[in-house]
């Protein structure tokens, strides 16, 4: 067995530098690597490129890095919830590459699985496909999209064991599994870190081979963006 645990978020983020490209899991604020983001804010590294489906909200998630102007470029599919983001984007301070959500997932997965690129129908005939190679298969047009290249992937799981095996909960899974192993170093933070053998191998969502460092996360806020409820009948 190969042990992947590190005992702090500081150890887990060792090696991050100005100008690097990071992948960050999560959908909205659901399943984001809260501890890693806080540490990146504290380290105040700059000129980052962040690949993440969304950009957090003004004062939480990636919004904190935007607030401190640590990010030069975002690669995302939807950024509607973030006023700082919109301001920095419209002023040209922040470079933004908006891409279809399925393409974002596929480019992560391609990086994880060793495909240099994939063909997708998403975005064909739109500005997303401008200057990209296209090809027809069975009468339908597809766009060639390249695998991402990233220095670190920061993901968050519900449970993990010391061998780096991960289990997710609910829709907090989202982009986290496809980012594992898609960067040079994958850092997983978990709500509950357990001993090897405690997780049923039948129920592992991400095998530990895709994870280089795992640590027990702390103080999860797990903020809800749109609290929608109904009353008991």
């Amino acid at each position, binding site marked *: 067995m190969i042990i992947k645990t590190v005992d702090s978020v500081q150890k887990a983020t060792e090696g991050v530098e100005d100008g690097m490209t990071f992948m960050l899991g999560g*959908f909205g604020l659901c399943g984001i690597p809260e501890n890693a983001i806080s540490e990146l804010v504290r380290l105040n590294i700059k000129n980052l490129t962040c690949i993440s489906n969304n950009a957090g909200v003004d004062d939480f998630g990636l919004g904190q890095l935007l607030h401190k102007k640590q990010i030069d470029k975002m690669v995302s599919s939807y950024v509607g919830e973030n006023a700082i983001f919109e301001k920095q984007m419209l002023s040209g301070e922040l470079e933004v590459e908006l891409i*279809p959500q399925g393409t974002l997932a596929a480019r992560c997965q391609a990086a994880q699985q060793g495909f240099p690129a994939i063909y*997708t129908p998403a975005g064909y005939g739109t500005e997303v496909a401008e200057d990209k190679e296209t090809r027809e298969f069975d009468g339908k047009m597809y766009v060639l999209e390249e695998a991402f290249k990233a220095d670190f992937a920061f993901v968050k799981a519900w449970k993990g064991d010391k061998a780096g095996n991960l289990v997710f909960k609910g*829709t907090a899974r989202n982009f986290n599994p496809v980012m594992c192993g898609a960067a040079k170093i994958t850092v997983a933070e978990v709500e509950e870190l357990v001993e090897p053998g405690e997780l049923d191998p039948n129920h592992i969502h991400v095998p530990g081979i895709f994870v280089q460092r795992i640590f027990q996360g702390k103080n999860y806020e797990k903020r809800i*963006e749109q609290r929608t*409820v*109904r009353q008991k009948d």
Partner: protein
Amino acid sequence: MALDKNGIAKRIAKEVKDGYYVNLGIGIPTLVANFVRDDIQVEFQSENGILGMGPFPIDGEEDADLINAGKQTITARPGASFFDSATSFGMIRGKHVDLTILGAMEVAENGDIANWKIPGKMVKGMGGAMDLVASAENIIVAMMHTNKAGESKLLKRCSLPLTGVGCVTKIVTNLAVIEVTDNGFKLLETAPGVSVEDVQNATEGKLIVEGDIPEMQL
């Protein structure tokens, strides 16, 4: 009387058939789930990673780890499943989802759709919309017939950046049900109290009217 948002959702719910897996977009499409007959088997997919989406949770039972693509707290129905984003879009790209219902800012008479960007004004992003419209074969657009300025949203050509080309099959608005054909918008039904002329006046693109047009049954 033109329909309100719930009226549009109610009419679209009639397009949801037994055994369908359905992806609902944000806005009016989300309301469709409230009107689907309860004697048929239907599963709702949300592209952030759930099949078998249920209603909003009872107050106090909301879970931060269980949301839909609109970031709203939801519940999971018995038989539901969770999955990662690549698997989710695999379902969509692989045409395993039977029906996609989404909103739009503009639809053109050739089936082009625009719903993600107003240059210089609003850029929220396409989210999953480009993947959905590029792959789904059965795409219904739910929207108001005109924008806030009173201008038609059913156009000869979209003026905004496109989300997808030649993909919309049906449009349900506050005024009408319209099919997108090779020759243009074909009027299928009018909303209660709305005349063919009203629809014609609110439609910039080519509107095909053949024979008597029935009124929507809601």
